[in-house]
């Protein structure tokens, strides 16, 4: 990957340029110290001089209002205009060296000038979002103004002030003795990061929380940036290094010391790359920190860097007044035997490793995004989308992007999802728009690769305001279940749906803030109604990165530096004790720090190390074969396969899946091979039960211990005593007495057991439960009668009878 820079000969300021910014994907605005605002259209190579500022106005920083929030009223109390879509934004703020900031609209008119301070306003940033609209407050966007004050006494101080979008001062957030050169917002708008001298400081907006500050560089820090997608921080300073940090201040990468100070830094909005500007140098770096490519324009220091919203173009403002526009080229994606390389901004080269043939796709417009998977290549250009079938590249299906700048493609087997960061839309591979699910609270940049997932029939989206919750839609855009959010206890960081299996067995894997990996059942309705607790089970702790297989319900993840593959994550709902046995682990020292899984195709796993190197790992093919056979209900053949391999984990796999598929023969066989005698015994016992409901109930208890479901089965089969005894066994006293209200003939049994329990274990405590106190008045306990009743109704050797 590298940046290809062009310096348009017409776009030249006479003085240095600090401010560059993209209005839309095609229109670039630049403001130089020669007081001129230029607008440059990349497609038509057209330069328009928008406006000329006053001679005393030296611009130091500019920032466009993030898209998705448009000015409706002039005076602050504006609201989100729901259905209205605009291309790009139409207002930016300009910070000037005399301590003012101006709102400038896209026609170059200065709408408002605010006197901020006596010193220079070095840095200005819109908050990435402010949709407090949903929670009932006024919809207020914040601006941050940073002031470097030069008082007459000779000392300098830095200040961070927060302003409402109307230009009213809201608060003085930070007052520091050192100048503050750069400031940025957190993704959730609840904190800001600024650099003070050699320190990076993360200051929460709420006054009571503690700020986090750490020494980041050996010299003063000039620039920092915080990405909203991957939540990583980059910083660069006069020690000529740039560093990558995570959100709690751990250093992930530190570059070598270069020759000149870092004068500018910018994250690509999608968080995959960032650019670093220095004297006569621009570097394109991976999010892990290492450098993709270096450009050496001879234009002095790079003072302004700005990425377009689709993360494919970058503009740089240079010390000589020239403005460069860079495109990312030589991006590559690969899928099985095909490799696609973007050789120029409009040319894709395909190389097929099987036939060693090469092909080319020429696009009409600039490529924005491409993605390959499930046999289809999806190419988004600035005007339209194209879908190529990997088998024959000839005729792509075309579809219109409806004037939205899409920044995300997620593919599933039959559909794919496009998102512009706010809304999502589902397309089929014929290019037909299938649906556009309506999210509960759309928020800019809330939809990214970590917060949305799609499978053949389900879409999962993390809610943008309540980050602990997930919203599920079916493929036609209708909410699944009762349309409510499914909540987890902690913030969800990454989620992914499995790609295969029946819609009713759809599972979501997600990692929360504490890096625990959970499995959640998506559809849990009807008879298998479960509480949220039962729908979510923990699979693993300390997970780094995880990914589902494309063909089988396998899940791979990196935990504790080891690569683990869960062949059948559903096992957590059936028999958690077998989780360990159905897991395959690969230990290797090669993975290094922070590896991530970039692909999991059939039995091959591609791991990207933090330094960008790709490692291929292979799991034995027979697991895949076995899963294929089992999914085709051919457990017999799967067992035959096992005889050759004689591996415990594959037997465990068969046992669990057969149990889930109600295939008792194979399950029994496999459990016997695992020498899991109690399971064999249970299964044999299960077969002797004649009544269907009873068997179902027993099975529900065996496979997953689901008491509600078992109770449902018992009641359905008109066996209330079984249900009551089940609850007594579980010491579920309240439910047991509740059940007796409909079946009063069993009150005696419940009360009897309760008294016995209190006597044996409670040290003859007094009864305090109101329901039991009331029941005790009406019945007197006769153990002979109870025994007789139990024997009669449950049978001689039922497991539900409580034997002394």
């Amino acid at each position, binding site marked *: 990957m590298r940046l290809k820079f062009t310096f348009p000969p017409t776009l030249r300021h006479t003085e*240095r340029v600090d401010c560059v910014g993209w209005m839309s994907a095609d229109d670039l605005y630049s403001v130089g110290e020669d007081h001129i605002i230029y607008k440059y259209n990349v497609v038509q190579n057209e330069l328009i001089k928008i406006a000329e500022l006053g001679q005393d106005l*030296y611009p130091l920083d500019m920032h466009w209002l993030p898209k998705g929030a448009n000015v409706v009223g002039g005076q602050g109390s504006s609201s989100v205009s729901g259905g209205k879509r605009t291309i790009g934004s139409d207002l930016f703020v300009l910070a000037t060296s005399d301590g003012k900031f101006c709102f400038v609209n896209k026609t170059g008119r200065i709408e408002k000038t605010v006197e901020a301070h006596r010193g220079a306003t070095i840095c200005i940033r819109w908050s990435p979002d402010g949709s407090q609209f949903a929670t009932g407050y006024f919809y207020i966007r914040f601006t941050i103004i940073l002031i470097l004050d*030069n008082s007459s006494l000779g000392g300098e101080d830095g200040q961070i002030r927060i302003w409402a979008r109307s230009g009213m001062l809201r608060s003085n957030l930070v007052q520091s003795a050192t*100048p503050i050169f750069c400031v940025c917002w957190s993704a959730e708008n609840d904190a800001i990061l600024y650099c003070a001298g050699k320190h990076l400081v993360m200051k929460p907006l709420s006054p009571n929380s503690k700020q986090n500050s750490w020494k980041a560089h050996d010299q*003063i820090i000039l620039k920092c940036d915080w990405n909203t997608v991957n939540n990583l921080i980059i910083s660069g300073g006069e020690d000529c290094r740039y560093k990558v940090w995570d959100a709690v201040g751990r250093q992930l990468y530190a570059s070598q010391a270069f020759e*000149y100070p870092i004068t500018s830094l910018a994250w690509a909005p999608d968080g995959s790359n960032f650019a670093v500007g220095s004297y006569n140098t621009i570097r394109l770096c991976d999010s892990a920190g290492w450098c993709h490519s270096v450009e050496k324009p001879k234009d002095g*220091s790079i003072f302004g860097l700005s990425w377009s919203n689709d993360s494919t173009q970058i503009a740089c403002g240079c*010390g*000589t007044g020239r403005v460069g526009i860079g495109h990312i080229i030589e991006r590559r994606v690969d899928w099985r035997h095909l490799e696609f390389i973007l050789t120029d901004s409009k040319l894709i080269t395909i190389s097929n490793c099987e036939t060693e043939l090469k092909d080319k796709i020429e696009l009409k417009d600039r490529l924005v995004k491409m993605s390959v998977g499930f046999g289809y290549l999806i190419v988004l250009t600035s005007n339209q989308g194209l879908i190529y079938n990997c088998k024959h590249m000839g005729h792509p299906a075309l579809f219109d992007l409806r004037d939205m700048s899409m920044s995300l493609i997620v593919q599933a087997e039959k559909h794919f999802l496009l998102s512009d960061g706010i809304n999502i839309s589902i397309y089929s591979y014929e290019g037909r728009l299938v649906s556009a699910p309506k999210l509960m609270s759309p928020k800019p940049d809330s939809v990214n690769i970590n917060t949305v997932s799609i499978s053949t029939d389900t879409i999962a989206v993390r809610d943008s305001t309540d980050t602990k919750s997930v919203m599920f839609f079916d493929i036609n855009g209708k909410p699944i279940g009762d349309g409510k959010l499914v909540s987890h206890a902690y913030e969800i960081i990454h989620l992914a749906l499995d790609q295969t299996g029946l819609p009713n067995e759809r599972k979501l894997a997600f990692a929360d803030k504490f890096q625990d990996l959970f499995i959640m059942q998506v559809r849990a309705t009807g008879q298998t109604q479960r509480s949220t607790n039962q729908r979510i089970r923990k699979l693993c702790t300390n997970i780094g990165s995880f990914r589902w297989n494309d063909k089988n319900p396998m899940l791979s993840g990196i935990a504790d530096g080891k690569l683990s593959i869960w062949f059948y994550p559903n096992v957590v709902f059936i028999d958690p004790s077998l989780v360990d046995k159905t897991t395959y682990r690969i230990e290797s020292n090669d993975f290094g720090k922070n590896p991530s899984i970039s692909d999991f195709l059939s039995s091959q796993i591609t791991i990207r190390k933090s330094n960008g190197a790709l490692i291929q790992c292979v799991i034995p093919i027979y697991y895949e074969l076995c899963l294929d056979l089992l999914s085709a209900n051919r457990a017999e053949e799967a067992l035959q396969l096992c005889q050759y391999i004689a591996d415990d984990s594959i037997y465990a796999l068969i046992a669990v899946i057969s149990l889930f598929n109600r295939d008792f023969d194979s399950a029994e066989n496999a459990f016997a091979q695992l020498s899991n005698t109690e399971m064999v015994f249970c299964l044999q016992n299960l077969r002797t039960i004649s009544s269907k409901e009873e068997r179902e109930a027993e099975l529900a208890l065996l496979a997953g211990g689901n008491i509600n479901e078992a109770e449902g089965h018992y009641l359905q089969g008109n066996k209330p005593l079984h249900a009551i005894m089940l609850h007594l066994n579980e010491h579920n006293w309240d439910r047991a007495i509740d059940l007796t209200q409909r079946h009063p003939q069993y009150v005696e049994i419940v009360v009897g057991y309760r008294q016995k329990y209190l006597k044996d274990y409670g040290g003859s405590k007094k009864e305090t439960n109101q329901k039991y106190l009331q029941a005790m008045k009406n019945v007197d306990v006769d153990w002979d009668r109870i025994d007789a009743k139990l024997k009669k109704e449950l049978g001689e050797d039922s497991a539900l009878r409580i034997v002394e």
Partner: protein
Amino acid sequence: MTYRDISHLCEMARVLSYPRLISMENFRQPNFRLVAEIMTWLVKQYDPLADVPTDIEGEQDRVIFIRAVTQIIATRAHLKLNTKKLYQADGYAVKEILKVITPLYKALRDTENKELDDEDDIDNSYRYAMNDDISTLKSARQLCSTITQKGANLHELLGKELDAREARQEVMNRGMELSEVKEGIREAETAAKRELIKYQKLIGNVQTDEVALDEKIAKRFEEKDRHQRRLDMLKSVRPSFMNDFEKYEIELNELYSNYVLKFRILSYLEKELEGHFRSQREKVQEVSRQYMQSMNSQITEQDQQRFNRQLQDPNDEIGVRSDEEEDDEEEEEEDEDEQ
């Protein structure tokens, strides 16, 4: 406005490749050493031979230094500096330094821009010329080759001119006499007449040849007619052996069909015979196999019986028994072989 000033100073120093990096923080506190260092360097840039005081430790030394520097700058660069501000060595000094450094920076930038523009111009004109000339280049090459060819020809001809000139001169210089001319003409006339007579004779000969050839052709025609007549006559006569020939032809046909029939029958019979032999052979094999099987079963039966007998005899020692068994087995094998 210090932020902008310092930032500019840093950038200009980098562009002018000042030997060290200047930090944004350097002038937060008064920093006379750095001011002195930068000023010394700048003065040297304007005038490498300028004499700048090196001692800046004492208060008096610093004043002398500032004064010396401002004087040099004033004379060399025609710039007036504020000595007080420079002496403060803080943000205000930066403004003064900028005054000095900006002309240098501008000059460098201008030359660079000019070079860049020139490069662009050259590039453009060159590219334009290229496009234009590529079409004419071919024709130019062709013209070149023709020019050399023509030149060579010309040269050759001019070489002959030396000889030709002499002959021409001679002829031009010779005097003409009337009688000689007359004589010559007359000679030419007689020669022409002789020629005329010779050609007339030849024409006469041709006519006689023509007559002779006509006669010959008539003779040939006559001969041909005669031969034709004879051929017709011969064709009309039927030869005597023809009757016999036809008779034998029919006879031969009959014989051939007879032969084919017989050959077919023969080959069929041969095949039948072969099949018969084969079935015979198989029958024999079958019988022998059955026989072998019955024999085998008999033998195993006998073995079984013997084995049972031995089992019933518990007094035998194990070692001995096994030896015997082995012997027995060997014998049996031999028996089988014989059978």
